């Protein structure tokens, strides 16, 4: 199955992923480091990626979108784009926590560098992180479907939003580890040779391509993709219900 994948939870990215069990792979992808122009760039990027992948919309089996957590406005741009594309193309729209993209990369690290349990943390602004705990053990989905014996990530707890100090003492991957290395117990900063995602793990952002590969791992292990695309805002709007007006007294 070919999935058009979008994530706008941090930076914006778009990918076409082939989930076929034999060799799940990213056929084409696009990303921007700009965290504040998602509404402008996503639709043209979808056009670009489909073109690069030489895939017509009719050849897609679904649209997959990262549901956050992430800053609200950018997150909505991705969700509005994905839901509307799926509606117009009459495709299912699948949703997945954006942190799963990084968790997938960690679960596929070389065995020597792969912790059994870890945290993925992203920038929640306001000196806080979005974070979740994952396990890289293959105890959930029988690895029989995964002949290479590689593992998929499993969500243990979260996602949450809060100060870095709240994050448990597990290895922490993702941009949150880079931003708050001094406030985390185990930020992972060293480049890991053989990792799917390049650069320091402390700079990793959720990417649509890895989100698609995480979805492929789920499907190929016999799981199903969720069609819940409700955004993981994790915070209420800042608006306060006004209190009683101050009365003038004599």
């Amino acid at each position, binding site marked *: 199955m070919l999935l058009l994948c979008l994530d706008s939870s941090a930076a914006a990215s778009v990918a076409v992923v082939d989930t076929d069990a034999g060799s799940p792979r990213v056929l084409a992808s696009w990303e921007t480091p700009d965290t504040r122009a998602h509404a*402008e760039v996503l*639709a043209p990027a*979808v*056009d670009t990626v489909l073109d690069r992948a030489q895939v017509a919309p009719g050849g897609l089996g679904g649209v997959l979108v990262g549901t956050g957590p992430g800053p*609200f406005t950018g997150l*909505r741009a991705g969700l509005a784009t994905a839901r*509307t594309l799926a509606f*117009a193309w009459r495709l299912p729209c699948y949703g997945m926590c954006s942190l799963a993209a990084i968790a997938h990369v960690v679960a596929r690290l070389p065995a020597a560098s792969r912790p059994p349990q870890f945290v993925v943390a992203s920038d929640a602004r306001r000196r806080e992180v979005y974070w979740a705990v994952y396990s890289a053990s293959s105890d959930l989905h029988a690895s029989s479907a995964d002949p290479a014996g590689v593992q998929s990530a499993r969500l243990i707890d979260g996602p949450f939003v809060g100060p870095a100090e709240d994050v448990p003492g597990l290895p922490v991957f993702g941009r949150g580890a880079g931003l708050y290395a001094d406030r985390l117990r185990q930020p992972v900063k060293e480049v890991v040779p053989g990792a799917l995602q390049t650069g320091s793990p402390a700079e990793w952002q959720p990417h649509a391509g890895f989100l698609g590969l995480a979805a492929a791992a789920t499907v190929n292990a016999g799981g199903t993709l969720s069609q819940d695309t409700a955004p993981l805002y994790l915070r209420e709007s800042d608006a306060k219900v006004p209190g009683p007006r101050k009365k*003038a007294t004599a």
Partner: protein
Amino acid sequence: MKPVNTEAQPVNAEAPNAPLVLGIETSCDETGVGIVRGRDLLANTVSSSMDEHVRFGGVIPEIASRAHLEAFVPTLEQALETAGVTLEELDAIAVTAGPGLAGALMVGVSAAKALALATGKPLYGINHLVAHVSVGLLHHDGAAVAGGLLDADGRAADGLGALLVSGGHTEILRVGDLAADVALLGATIDDAAGEAYDKVARLLGLSYPGGPAIDAAAQGGDPAAFRFPRGLSNAKYMGSAEEPGKHRYDFSFSGLKTAVARVVEAYEAEGEEIPVADIAASFQESVVDVITRKAVLAATENGLNTLLLGGGVAANSRLRELAEERCAEHGIRLVVPPLSLCTDNGAMVAALGARLVSGGIAPTGLEFAADPGLPVTQVSLR
């Protein structure tokens, strides 16, 4: 289905006469999707998040934006069903690009771009204020819904003006040609009129939205009980017709709100019951007096003989009454569209889109950004 080319497309030399256009509006708290065929209104579906803002006493942008995301696809689906058309049949899509709340606009713009990409239809990013005037184009069941203000080409037959009064806007426009010639004659320099209603309603312990609450409370009150200020009405702001002052056609409502607060506080300080009806009536009279006075002044001094009333405050009984009275005195034709087309809606966006298609105006494409401060002189983004 082939993805649309993202580059701006050339001007269509054979523009359809009655293009089928879908319009999307998300600039404030209404998620609107409208569909028109040329000038015929086929669907006007609106989902409002107003109820979610009641406890705050005003529109909360983040709550409005969240509601737009959830409402968009269902609203789109219902509009298509009501109009009895499919996405494939559309000739173009139009979306409000501004002015409005940034986060709210971005939901509609993202969705509109996705829809344009998925269908391969040209996309127009259009001006919300000019769209309000575009309801003057529309026909429904064979009759003009707003007096047939514009000829088939979207040009005003003779001097057309518009008075837009809502929670976000208070503007006087001169309209020569919907597609090419719209000028701002006057606007509020601080609060919008509807915003002043909301704030004063809160001062008086009335419900949100303040417009209908104050209108109702004012029914039994004396509009002359208190003399509240008429903002920007002094000679130094007004000047003369020959030498207009800086704010001759502009409005200001923040001083009025403060004046009402002082009166309320004075009653509280004396431990007396607040005369809600009299204050509401006097406040309303002040707002409506200055709006209609300046609108009629702008009309007579700019050769406008027709005035279209738009925006949610067009529902206000006293505004309609005084506008009708003063327009009649000056030989100005006042046109008040049905309320569903005065408040924010997608049909007006579609109507303007259809006018742009017919006029051979090039579509905006997929690369534009929403512009929360889009000036009224820019009818569509290029």
